[in-house]
């Protein structure tokens, strides 16, 4: 047999799926032991770990992707308990995709932070690694309570990252963010406890197998529990009206934190997709399709809110915050429809929109800084309140500035390279967020809309829901384009006689890579769509997931061998 990297992965496979949790955890522990004076060492360790995390995610992604359409699952029992009792980690196509997303955005945000942001306060690197651990864990776990724990890990790190750099605006936004998330966590606990009280298990696959058997008397209680749990996830996924906290918090966070926060809402979306396909599949009897109407209408309200918010905001960071809401609303509405082909398109849209928004968050920082040519000046967030009408002072014409009738000054005035690069990245982000051709934002939206319009089950007639959603997606694109081109004109065209901003290549690289990935998504749209289609198909056949988890046996060890009917392994004296 010839050697291949797959053979190596296969050899360590069930164990490799816990590596994305262990690696950032151990790195964070190591980083805590290094003093703040050894920033160079800390940076090197942190960057190496983030790079390794990305490599792990790529390996796991390839491992799941090469399986057939029936789905490849890796089930890992961290404590070697029998399945419904212990914690399980489950890796499937969807989690592998999300892990890859964390790997890429994590590395890029860290690279951006290394240029200057990591010096703005203590313990940036450990917090960042714990953030990665929480995200990876939330995507891997197959247990409801373990999901709560990873949610809390992720949130605890995000509080730290939000407050990183301090300042009144951040502390105020952080206080609100903390209170909202603590209440959401309480709701999570209440929901999980109610579900445990009714069904008697917290394993997601076991729950999926037992939900159809719940008696009619207990079913309303189960549904109430699921609804309360859902509110917690919807708060995280920023559904209107539970998303008022998002824009102030995300726009006051430092740019690398903002980029990683673009992922946090996707955790909510991921959990909604995972649990709704597992628990409320057509096999779930009375519970089939529970809450999907809420998801569709709530998603549409979120989409409308986000689009209007984009029109109303002036600061680039706030625009990025509303772009998060628009992306999340689109995904929730599409997932809520519960149609595999629509979900497949949404799964193509999810990574590309997340990359675009993360790049936009990083870019806003560079744009804000470009307003003063001196890179040493750090604009404080409280100077950046939204004033209406925007920047009238900026628009005052100075004597000698060029107008259309007086074109002489335009000639021979070169565009500085840094402004050109920033402008190019901004145009790409605009195209991606608004969903205009030729970039992948358009491909994603087009795939979703064409999937929406093909209705084999209703015999060719489109329902009002479909039309509303279609209209909203198109309108939100228009609104995003108006808002973003207005900001682009203000930042790149209107200022006259400004010095060229200093552009640090380490800071520009992550933006370029993220935008470049979206270009890659455009070029390789067909194979990526195929992956998304297979993923969606596997998601809507939850029996494979349930069987894979419930049939996993713990390994025979001296302590449990007798119980499992296996000969006890020889223990060396």
């Amino acid at each position, binding site marked *: 047999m010839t050697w291949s990297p797959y053979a190596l992965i296969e050899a360590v496979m069930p164990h490799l799926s816990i590596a994305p949790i262990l690696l950032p955890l151990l790195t964070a522990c190591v980083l805590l032991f290094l003093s703040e004076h050894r920033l160079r060492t800390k940076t090197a360790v942190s960057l190496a770990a983030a790079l390794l995390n990305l490599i792990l995610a790529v390996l796991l992604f390839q491992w799941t992707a090469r399986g057939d359409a029936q789905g490849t699952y890796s089930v890992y029992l961290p404590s070697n308990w029998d399945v419904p009792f212990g914690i399980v980690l489950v890796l499937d196509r969807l989690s592998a995709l999300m892990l890859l997303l964390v790997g890429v955005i994590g590395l890029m945000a860290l690279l951006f932070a290394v240029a200057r942001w990591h010096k703005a306060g203590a313990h940036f690197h450990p917090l960042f690694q714990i953030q990665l651990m929480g995200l990876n864990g939330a995507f891997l776990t197959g247990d409801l*309570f373990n999901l709560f*724990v990873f949610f*809390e890990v992720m949130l*605890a790190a995000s*509080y730290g990252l939000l*407050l990183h750099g*301090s*300042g*009144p605006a951040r*502390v*105020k936004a*952080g*206080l*609100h963010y*903390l*209170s909202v998330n*603590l*209440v959401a*966590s*309480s709701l999570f*606990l*209440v929901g*999980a*406890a*109610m579900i*445990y*009280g009714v069904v008697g298990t*917290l394993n997601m696959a076991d729950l999926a197998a037992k939900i159809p058997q719940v008696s009619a008397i207990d079913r309303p209680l189960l549904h109430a529990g699921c609804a309360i749990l859902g509110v917690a996830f919807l708060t995280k996924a920023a559904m209107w009206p539970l998303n008022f906290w998002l824009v102030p918090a995300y726009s006051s966070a430092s740019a690398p934190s903002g980029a990683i926060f673009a992922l946090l809402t996707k955790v909510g979306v991921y959990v909604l997709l995972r649990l709704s396909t597992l628990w409320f599949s057509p096999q779930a009897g009375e519970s089939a399709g529970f809450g999907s109407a809420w998801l569709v209408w709530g998603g549409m309200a979120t989409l409308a809110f986000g689009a209007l918010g984009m029109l109303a905001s002036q600061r680039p960071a706030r625009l990025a915050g509303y772009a998060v809401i628009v992306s999340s609303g689109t995904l929730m509405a599409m997932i809520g429809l519960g149609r595999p082909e629509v979900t497949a398109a949404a799964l193509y849209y999810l990574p590309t929109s997340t990359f675009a928004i993360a790049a936009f968050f990083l870019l806003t920082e560079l744009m804000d800084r470009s307003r003063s040519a001196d890179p040493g000046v750090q604009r404080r967030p409280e100077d950046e309140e939204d004033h209406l009408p925007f920047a009238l002072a900026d628009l005052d014409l100075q004597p000698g500035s060029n107008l259309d009738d007086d074109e002489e000054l335009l000639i021979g005035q070169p565009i500085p390279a840094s402004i050109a690069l920033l402008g190019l990245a901004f145009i790409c982000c605009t195209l991606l967020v608004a969903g205009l051709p030729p970039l992948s934002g358009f491909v994603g939206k087009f795939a979703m809309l064409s999937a929406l319009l093909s209705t084999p089950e209703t015999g060719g007639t489109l329902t009002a829901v479909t039309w509303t959603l279609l209209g909203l997606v198109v309108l939100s694109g228009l609104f995003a384009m108006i808002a973003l081109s207005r900001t682009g004109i203000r930042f790149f065209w209107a200022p006259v006689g400004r010095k060229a901003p200093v552009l640090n290549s380490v800071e520009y690289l992550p933006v370029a890579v993220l935008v470049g990935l979206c270009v890659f998504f455009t070029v390789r749209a067909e194979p990526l769509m195929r992956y998304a289609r297979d993923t969606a198909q596997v998601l809507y056949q939850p029996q494979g997931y349930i069987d894979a988890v419930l049939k996993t046996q713990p390994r025979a060890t001296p302590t449990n061998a007798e119980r499992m009917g296996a000969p006890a392994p020889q223990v060396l004296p």
Partner: protein
Amino acid sequence: MEIVLAIAIGVLTACGVWLLLRPRTYQVIMGLCLLSYGVNLFIFSTGRLALDSEPVLIPGVLETLQNYTDPMPQALVLTAIVIGFAMTALFLVVLLAQRGFWGNDHVDGQGDAE
């Protein structure tokens, strides 16, 4: 016993929600504490209430929930208490930072309320 516990959870949660909606940061943190007490008691109660029964197996006693109390919610509530405690401590730090920056204890940093 059920009614007593239910009333206790209800009162704690109601007080927690009311305090949470108040404009002072101290009231908010007290509200969050009361809310988490209510939630913890609620988790505890999902294992069904039982008198004089223990979660640890005793040799010779049949392993059903008739003879034992469910150990799972107790384990869950322990985790929830630890996490809730840590989050309250973190909230306290942010509360003090907010007070330091804005010079008052209003959640929005504006001292003109009330």
